[in-house]
């Protein structure tokens, strides 16, 4: 591994690759700072620009946009109380409160350092875990892939914070919407209503931009654009000894949690931040202080979302499966270059695999060096009032979606999903299960149909093959665990009350 890592760094520090890395992390931070423009739209918009680049440089740049956005997203959450990126939603709770208390510098600083530490640890995780996982992945057939995806669906619905029924309904709706377009095996048109736009299926980018970007802006408009532009004086970006003492545990826990959750299909970078926040609150001696401006509420989630970006690279690089929406776009970048990510990537294209992994470490270092001095620039950017900013966010969303396929109907689809997403917010439906089921749905259909063809109609194939059976067992465990834990808790409570009574 050490030789391979050295080879990776040699590739990553080549001038063109370094430049690609810098452009990626800079653009990533910029779009992370700006609310309403996420990494998915930006990466989609820049896909055509990668035609002229080498495969390694293009993937380095695209990956840089993703983890750069995680850095940038926290800046907006802390200073303006608007998540610049969906994975920084939870940072608003304590980050903005810290800024209001005059501790914006400490919040931004620990966010940057925590992100760097988590990002670096996750790169180390990829280096150690990806090669053995790639060897295991060679044993993956359709039943194993379906069982793995089932874990993703189970995680995303059962980890949703509210109504499980609503989450399951959203996941089913996402899976169903994913079936529109040509059938993956027979190419029969399904739910296309005779239109060319739908023959390729519902576009991922219009759907995401609608459900997240447009819906977010509409909700802000409804609330009266009262998101005040806070004008804090940014001082003391270097965390104090006490800040480090308070944040060390959250950063370590957030890194481990984010990395391992990020590996699982369907999780992405958002869910680990919520879990990290919940864990920090649970282990804290003063959980009541969460939401009032405690540094642990910033350090943990910010470490988690950066570690998750590294973790989510593993299924893509070793299995060729995009575990979340951003990775789906990155998969597109691989395919444009004629490179198929998967178990053979390390062997056939070591320069891409090790170069990209090493560049993530270089990129994380760049982000730390870049972001601390650039905080002032981002603050200036954020001083544009929301009343001026929101039309621009809407316009960038429109251009981003139109630019992908130059199709007006993609805009209409985006606006329909914008309206749906806005209604979902008002009616307390979560969009994440819908989107992730939509992303993974096509692969799930292909794998279950191929499994049934292989077994001549026997679903037992999902349990008879050891790896598939183990993965299915994990999915079932995740499904029943909350009920079992709840039942055990009530039994313990009953026993205690009986013994005290």
């Amino acid at each position: 591994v050490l030789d391979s890592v050295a080879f990776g760094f040699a590739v990553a520090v080549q001038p063109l690759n370094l430049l690609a890395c810098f452009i990626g992390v800079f653009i990533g931070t910029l779009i992370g700072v700006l609310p309403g423009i996420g990494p998915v739209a930006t990466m989609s918009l820049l896909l055509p620009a990668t035609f002229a680049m080498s495969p390694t440089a293009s993937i380095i740049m695209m990956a840089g946009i993703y983890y750069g956005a995680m850095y940038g997203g926290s800046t907006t959450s802390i200073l303006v109380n608007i998540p610049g990126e969906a994975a920084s939603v939870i940072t608003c709770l304590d980050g903005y409160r810290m800024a209001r208390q005059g501790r914006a510098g400490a919040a931004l600083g620990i966010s940057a350092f925590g992100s760097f530490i988590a990002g670096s640890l996750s790169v180390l995780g990829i280096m150690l875990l990806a090669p053995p996982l790639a060897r295991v992945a060679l044993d993956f057939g359709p039943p194993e892939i379906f069982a793995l995806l089932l874990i993703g669906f189970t995680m995303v619905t059962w980890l949703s914070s509210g109504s499980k029924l609503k989450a399951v309904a959203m996941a089913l709706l996402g899976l169903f919407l994913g079936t529109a377009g040509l059938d993956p095996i027979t190419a029969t048109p399904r739910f296309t209503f005779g239109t060319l736009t739908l023959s390729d299926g519902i576009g991922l980018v219009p759907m995401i931009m609608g459900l997240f970007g447009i819906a977010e802006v509409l909700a802000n408009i409804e609330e009266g654009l009262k998101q005040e532009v806070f004008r804090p004086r940014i001082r003391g970006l270097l965390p104090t000894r006490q800040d480090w003492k308070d944040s060390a545990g959250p950063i370590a826990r957030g890194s481990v949690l984010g990395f391992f959750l990020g590996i699982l299909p369907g999780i992405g970078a958002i869910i680990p931040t919520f879990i990290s926040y919940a864990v920090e609150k649970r282990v804290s001696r003063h959980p009541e202080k969460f939401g009032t401006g405690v540094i642990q509420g910033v350090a943990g989630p910010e470490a988690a979302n950066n570690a998750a970006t590294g973790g989510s690279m593993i299924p893509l690089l070793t299995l060729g499966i995009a575990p979340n929406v951003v990775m789906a776009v990155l998969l597109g970048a691989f395919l444009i270059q004629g490179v198929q990510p998967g178990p053979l990537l390390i062997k056939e294209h070591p320069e891409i695999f090790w170069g990209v992994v090493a560049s993530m470490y270089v990129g994380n270092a760049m982000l730390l060096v870049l972001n601390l001095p650039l905080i002032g620039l981002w603050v200036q950017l954020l001083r544009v009032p929301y009343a001026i900013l929101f039309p621009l966010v809407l316009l960038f969303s429109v251009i981003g979606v139109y630019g992908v396929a130059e199709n007006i109907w993609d805009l209409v689809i985006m606006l329909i999903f914008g309206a749906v997403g806005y209604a979902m917010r008002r009616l307390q439906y979560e969009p994440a299960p819908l989107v992730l089921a939509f992303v993974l749905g096509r692969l799930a259909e292909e794998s279950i149909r191929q499994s049934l063809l292989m077994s001549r109609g026997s679903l037992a194939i999902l349990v008879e093959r050891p790896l598939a059976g183990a993965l299915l067992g994990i999915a079932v465990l995740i499904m029943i665990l909350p009920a079992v834990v709840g039942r055990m808790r009530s039994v313990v409570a009953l026993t205690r009350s009986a013994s005290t009574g």
Partner: protein
Amino acid sequence: VTAPDTAASTPGQRWAAAGLTAFGIAASLQARALPFGGITHPGPGFFPLCLAVALTLVSGALLLVTLRAPLAEAGAARSRRGLVRAAATLAALFVYALALEWIGFGVGTFLLIAFLFRAIEPQPWPVALGGAATTVVVTHVLFRIWLGVRLPTGPWGF
């Protein structure tokens, strides 16, 4: 963050569950028209029909839960003005999207941005018109010239 299943439901949540159920039924009917195949050779309709039926069942259960839950007490009334602003923004975007190829990116964007600046969160006329013109020029340079995005031109050529 969503409410747990046992929480009180609002009329909107009941309508949403009913709408999802109706969508599930309509989807099932549409999926039935596709070749189903069989369990040994699943056809193009196999997966969609299974999903649509499952969606109908889950949405139906959700509808039952929301109907059985107590009706939520009216909370703080949402600003009607806020709703109108959000609806007007969405309507303007729909009109913009549908008219974009007829009138071109330059004119369409100028009108959209001027409307949003002036009508949604009112700015003085010079700010609205100046902001719209600046936006058109900047986006033209950034996207059309630098990034090479082919934006609709319309009859005026821009």
